[in-house]
């Protein structure tokens, strides 16, 4: 615009959509007010006039975009409001900005978040109904033919939904940094959760002790995340940029700062960021979001500081540093051993996992059984049976990277399935991009 405004080194698109007229319930952390102060800070900074920073409105995701990823019970149409389609649509707009080179990088600052939403969806879990990153990832694969994608989840809570969706996909590297599941919702995200039989070692969990400081995050980034990314060589890096690791967050117990978040993003250098959690809406979000934006854009973030920031307040005890060091080596071990048990699993042809998924917002359980039908040529297809709320789904999912044989087999299985009342029989074929139910 002019030499009187700073300019961003990397052209960065912001999809800032605070949805001031939407909430889960008036006093819920996910309420209208959540991004008010962030919006106010970003606008007052004058980011709209910074050269090479672009603001886009979200678009609405379609049910087709949702059904490419999720198995919704009773249906996406019944579960979702326009707000969910806009939040997901915000990530799609971010993806389009980057893939069509309108910008080098994009940040979808949208709500509600999505990383606790699993492949099957029966309702709201951990403030999430649909997984907005996963919807974006499969959209990118569908429309732009990208194969290898890395998702680094820096929300304080374990990204259990994203993990679930990509668990058996060796082309999606999922790394989650979070507060140890023994001390925080959703209670998962341990080292041994390392991927399905065809993608073992492609899910890396880094459960950090409560009160981990900038130092601990820096260590994990430098010792684990960056080296693994270098080796995986993704075509695209996505940051699930939750901001509830902040020292002021009311529902978590970490000691991460705005400077820390900005530094993390400078190092990670993601192509796309998607806001996840973060509920210190006044004391953290305006600063962490600004820090992340400036880092993405390649601008100076040295003056982004919380009003009560005092670097001397947070020093990590040496025992904690040692603990994190040990965690780093174990995590590197997980990635180094990737694929080592694949041949053994393949001999079994079908590997079945059981799990119980708790929907905390309304309080009910879903029993789920996933059978991975393995194949020597591809990750295979999966068969999912889930029951909750007296509803059943029996679905076959063909991943984008499945072979023709597996695709045909899943289709046959679906066609043979007999419709029965109370059960949805579904075929989700990401190669043909179809979602069928009966």
């Amino acid at each position, binding site marked *: 615009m002019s030499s009187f405004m*700073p300019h961003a080194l990397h052209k960065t698109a912001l999809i800032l959509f605070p*949805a001031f007229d939407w909430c889960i319930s008036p006093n819920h952390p996910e309420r209208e007010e959540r991004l008010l102060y962030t919006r106010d800070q970003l606008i*007052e900074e004058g980011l709209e006039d*910074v050269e090479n920073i672009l603001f886009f409105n979200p678009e609405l995701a379609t049910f087709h975009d949702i059904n490419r990823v999720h198995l919704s019970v009773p249906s996406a149409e019944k579960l979702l409001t326009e707000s969910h389609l806009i939040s997901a649509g915000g990530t799609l707009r971010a993806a389009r900005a980057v893939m069509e080179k309108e910008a080098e990088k994009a940040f979808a600052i949208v709500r509600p978040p999505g990383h606790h939403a699993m492949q099957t969806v029966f309702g709201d879990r951990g403030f999430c109904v649909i997984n907005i990153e996963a919807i974006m990832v499969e959209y990118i694969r569908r429309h732009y033919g990208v194969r290898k994608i890395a998702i680094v989840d820096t929300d304080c809570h374990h990204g259990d939904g994203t993990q679930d969706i990509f668990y058996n996909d060796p082309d999606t590297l999922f790394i989650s940094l979070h507060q140890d599941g023994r001390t925080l919702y959703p209670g998962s995200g341990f080292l041994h959760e390392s991927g399905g039989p065809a993608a073992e070692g492609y899910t890396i969990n880094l459960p950090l002790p409560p009160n981990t400081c900038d130092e601990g995050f820096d260590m994990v980034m430098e010792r684990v995340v960056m080296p693994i990314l270098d080796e995986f060589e993704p075509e695209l890096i996505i940051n699930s940029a939750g901001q509830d690791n902040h020292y002021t967050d009311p529902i978590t117990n970490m000691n991460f700062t705005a400077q820390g978040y900005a530094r993390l993003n400078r190092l990670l250098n993601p192509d796309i960021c998607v806001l996840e959690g973060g509920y210190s809406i006044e004391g953290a979000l305006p600063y962490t979001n600004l820090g992340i934006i400036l880092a993405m854009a390649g601008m100076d973030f040295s003056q982004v500081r*919380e*009003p009560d920031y005092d670097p001397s307040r947070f020093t990590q005890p040496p025992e904690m540093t040692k603990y994190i060091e040990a965690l780093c080596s174990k995590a590197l071990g997980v990635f180094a051993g990737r694929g080592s048990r694949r041949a053994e699993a393949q001999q079994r042809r079908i590997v079945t996992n059981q799990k119980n998924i708790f929907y905390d917002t309304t309080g009910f359980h879903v029993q789920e059984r996933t059978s991975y039908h393995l194949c020597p040529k591809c990750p295979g297809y999966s068969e999912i049976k889930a029951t909750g709320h007296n509803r059943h789904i029996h679905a076959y999912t063909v991943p984008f990277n499945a072979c023709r044989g597996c695709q045909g087999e899943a289709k046959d299985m679906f066609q043979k399935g007999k419709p029965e009342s109370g059960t949805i029989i579904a075929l989700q074929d990401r190669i043909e991009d179809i979602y069928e139910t009966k």
Partner: protein
Amino acid sequence: MIIGIDVGGTHADGVLLDGDTLVAKHKVSVAQQHLSDVIITLLQHLVPGDRSTLQRIHLSSTLCTNAIVTGALDPVGMLLQAGPGMNPDFFAKSCPTWFLDGAIDHRGQILRDPDPGKIDAAALAMRREGINSIGIVTKFSHRNNRHEQQVAAQLVGRFAHVSLGHRISGLPNFPRRVYSTWLNAALASQFSLFKNALEEGLAHLGITCPCHVLKADGGTIPFSRACEFPCESVHSGPSASVMGCLALAAQTDDAILLDIGGTTTDIALLVDGAPLLEPYGVNVAGRPTLIRALKTTSIGLGGDSRVAWHNGTFRIGPERQGTSMAEGGTAPTPTDAMVVLGKLAVGSQQQAAMAMLALCPKESPEYTATLLLESFVEHIRLAVEAMIEEVFARPVYTVAALLHRRRIQPKRIVAIGGPAAALQSFLGQALFLPCTVPANYEVANAIGAARARLTVQASLYADTGDGRLSIPELSCLETISSRYSMPDAEKRLKGAVSMMVAEMGMKSCPEIDFLERLEMNVVRGFATSGKILTLKAQIRPGLTTI
């Protein structure tokens, strides 16, 4: 009777209106003359006799533009409190800048006061550099102006002119607030010299009626207020043109307004008949500002633009090389095409035909001329489309707003300017819209200035949790009860706007619009601790009712 004067780059036009009837018009050259002399000359011609029936003089001038172009701005020192955020060093590129410590946050809460010692040191340094006009701006001063006021109080009497950021605009956007404040401070003495010269001239002519200045938003303010806020008088030319179009061809639907000149075409849009505003403000001297302005786009395309034939298409403008060949110029121009087609009667028909042959030697001049004008209006069509898309893409923040966005759908074109009549049928065909070219369009700007009415805007921010209310435009910071509500806010802001209107000497206050109503519960620890209310009020740009 109202006089409207529009001073342009080369000429100044004046009109005398009785209601909406054009009683007299006059044109003078502005070369080498003082602006005040130009205006006085026009007034003498427009009202040679009894001047006691004059109600008002409305003036759209290039004073500020000239001051910027000729470098006649006052040296300004800026005192800024940037608080946490983007590195503010870039401000120093604009003018000498001193940074204060302390901060105010996004809710207008004071985090830390600035150090008075630093303020004093900055003031001393400014005096040493010969700076006598200063601007004081803090981040979030639209939420809380206390620090700006404190700094001003500490420096009272030490500088000839002090501009405070929150007084200039109640909108957010710190860099824009800084640059608006800078511009205001930089224009202070130029404007006051102009005011003195003009007042002297008016007194000499025995004119005692009030004098108003046209603003970039298509409204006017009295001279007295313009003296305090000279930055508001910038960029009034395009708004004069828009208001002129409205006065000559009023619309009730969405419409496109075109002012086609010799070197540029200015485009503006009407939404339901009202001119569209910029979301923040106009760019001046390369700086984005919060000076409220009509949304206009200027493209380098006019009747005298130089035309070249290149790779099977016409390259029109953006530069100009003298006049058309028909009028003795050396390069082909769109004007030549208009002459060839008999749409414009200037210069030599033969020379114009030569121009077309110079472009495409193998085609008939009529054919080339038609093709050229089709290409000319196609450029306009594309620019209009881009502008409509840009307006549609403006950020919105609520689900309702996103779902109910409406794309502007023009129903008519109103075109003014020298080549407008010649292009009328081409425009209509290219945009599939009826095209009006109103009579008297050559004095549209002066008529627009004359017919424009006063505009005012004010914004309110109330935080019932903190018990604080701010109306920055009035420097108002009050205590409110925890039960303060949106109806209270509307009443308060309406009162504020009516007061501003009365202070500007208007007897009746036009309709006040409320915009951007936002009411948000503040929840702390699972209980509502208060409400944040934001609201804007404006008198929208429009024509004086007769």
